């Protein structure tokens, strides 16, 4: 994905944390620690970093982190073709077990308590899994809006500034690769998209 991005002539500047965005003369000036960029349009897709930057372009997007932990087993021959919500077998043969939601701020670590719970859950559903060895476990932070639905919003006070966020970036990839870019480039809000604006959270 990154290769095709670059091959299309696009530019990627890593390690450039954005500090400020100023909307001036219908143009956005984006300032990082060492560089300044300017653009006609800006898309904020930086997950938990969105809230702070969105305020600078006239959008209020409340977000909170929620930790999920997953367990990964050793590889075994393909057995489970149908993915379940909390248990699936990958193409390489590992089972992945994930069914946890913790409010722990920005801590993306793993805990034996949750690992035990996930392992017990997996064995309750498929007792045969108890003979598989666990190889690794991961923790990561979901990006949650107050109603857990995505936010797709364009700023009214700074037209050309967009926010795109959801906690299901992989599941929603077809949408994010299809309708959303057209919305951003052409500027016409697709039918029904109003529901995803962040103003729905205003008191």
């Amino acid at each position: 994905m990154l290769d095709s991005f670059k091959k299309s002539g696009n530019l990627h500047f890593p390690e450039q944390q954005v500090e400020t965005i100023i909307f001036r003369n219908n143009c956005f000036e984006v300032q990082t620690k060492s560089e300044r960029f300017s653009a006609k349009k800006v898309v904020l897709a930086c997950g938990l970093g969105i809230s702070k930057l969105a305020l600078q372009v006239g959008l209020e997007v409340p977000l909170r982190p929620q930790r999920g932990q997953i367990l990964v087993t050793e590889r075994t021959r393909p057995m489970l073709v149908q993915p379940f919500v909390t248990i699936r077998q990958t193409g390489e043969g590992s089972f992945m077990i994930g069914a946890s939601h913790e409010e722990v701020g920005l801590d993306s670590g793993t805990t034996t308590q949750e690992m035990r719970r996930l392992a017990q859950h997996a064995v309750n559903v498929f007792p045969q899994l108890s003979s598989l060895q666990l190889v690794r476990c991961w923790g990561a932070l979901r990006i949650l809006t107050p109603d857990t639905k995505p936010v797709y919003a364009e700023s009214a006070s700074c037209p050309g500034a967009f926010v795109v966020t959801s906690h299901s970036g992989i599941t929603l990839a077809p949408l994010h690769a299809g309708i959303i870019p057209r919305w951003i480039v052409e500027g016409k809000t697709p039918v029904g998209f109003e529901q995803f604006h962040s103003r729905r959270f205003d008191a």
Partner: protein
Amino acid sequence: MKEIYDLLIIGAGPAGLAAAIEAAKHKISVLVLDEQSEAGGQIYRSIRTTQSLRPETYALLGPDYQHGENLEKTFREAGIEFLAGASVWQVEPDRALHFLRNGKSQKVSYRRLLAATGALERPVAIPGWTLPGVMGAAAADVLLKSSGAVPSGKVVLAGSGPLLWLAASRLVSAEVKILAVLETTKYAYYLQALPYLPQALRAAEYLLKGLRLKRQIRRAGIPVFSGIRQLRAEGAQKLEAVHFDHRGQSKNFEAETLLIHEGIVPNTQLTRQLGCEHRWYERQRYWHPLLDEWGNSSVDGVAVAGDGGIVAGALIAEASGHLSALEAAFQLGAIQKIIEIRPPKLTVKLSGIIKRCVLFWNSYFRQIRKSSFHLRRTL
């Protein structure tokens, strides 16, 4: 086993053993865990078993290996609590450590943790590297130590670095059939290293050892191909032939064993799991945990000693283990004061070995900060 220890040492190689020996002198409770079945780490792997059951192999392995005997013996006789066959798999922020032993997971708590988990051979993923018969060169060395076994068929060695030559030398002494040594080092690198030669000459014994190893290989009539490219292993169910390009020509050797080596890198699994900060060391192309002069990591209560911090070999690992134990004893309040020595101002009276360790370690870290060629004089 107690519920909580003052100092928990993971790894019973030279760093862990030296740390345990020193820590035991300071009346702090110590537990050592290692996933191997006996102490020694990799450099002194199975030293006790090799010495008692395979004396001819012990003799072949030479003084560098035999140095570990004294260390292991001192450790054993100090009566320090040691759990072999223990695999650490999780460390929690509340200083609880979980390990797997004999199929059961157990938990133990600590006040200070010393990760002396060492290094591993850099995996070299050439085409065909998963074929039976393809192994690391240092791996073959470890096999000789742990089980007294050597490849039975024809062997090709490939890669770069001192361990490649050491492995070759040991296999020659063991009368293994070596067909060739394929060096991946480009000629240009020798030229690039020239500016460091004056400095390297200050630890000339390392250079001489390298030259001696190379001469031994040449004398055994083993062809050496330098600057090879496109190394690949081929075979149906196991290794059958090693292919490579040399000076624009395709060549191959039929062999049953290929030993590859491209250096040693720190094993950072534990320090990553603990959340320690790491840095990329461009010159040696590896990640390592960020440490201060006493081996403290960026996580409170967690220190690193030995090759798991920076790869510098067994003798420096011993010194760093020794220093980490002093630091642990100090942090735990068992020692009142540690006086640092900054060369060349030698001021304080410490016993001879500690003075040399600190000198060594301080100047070693100065070298790392200047990012220079890190061959140092042995103790």
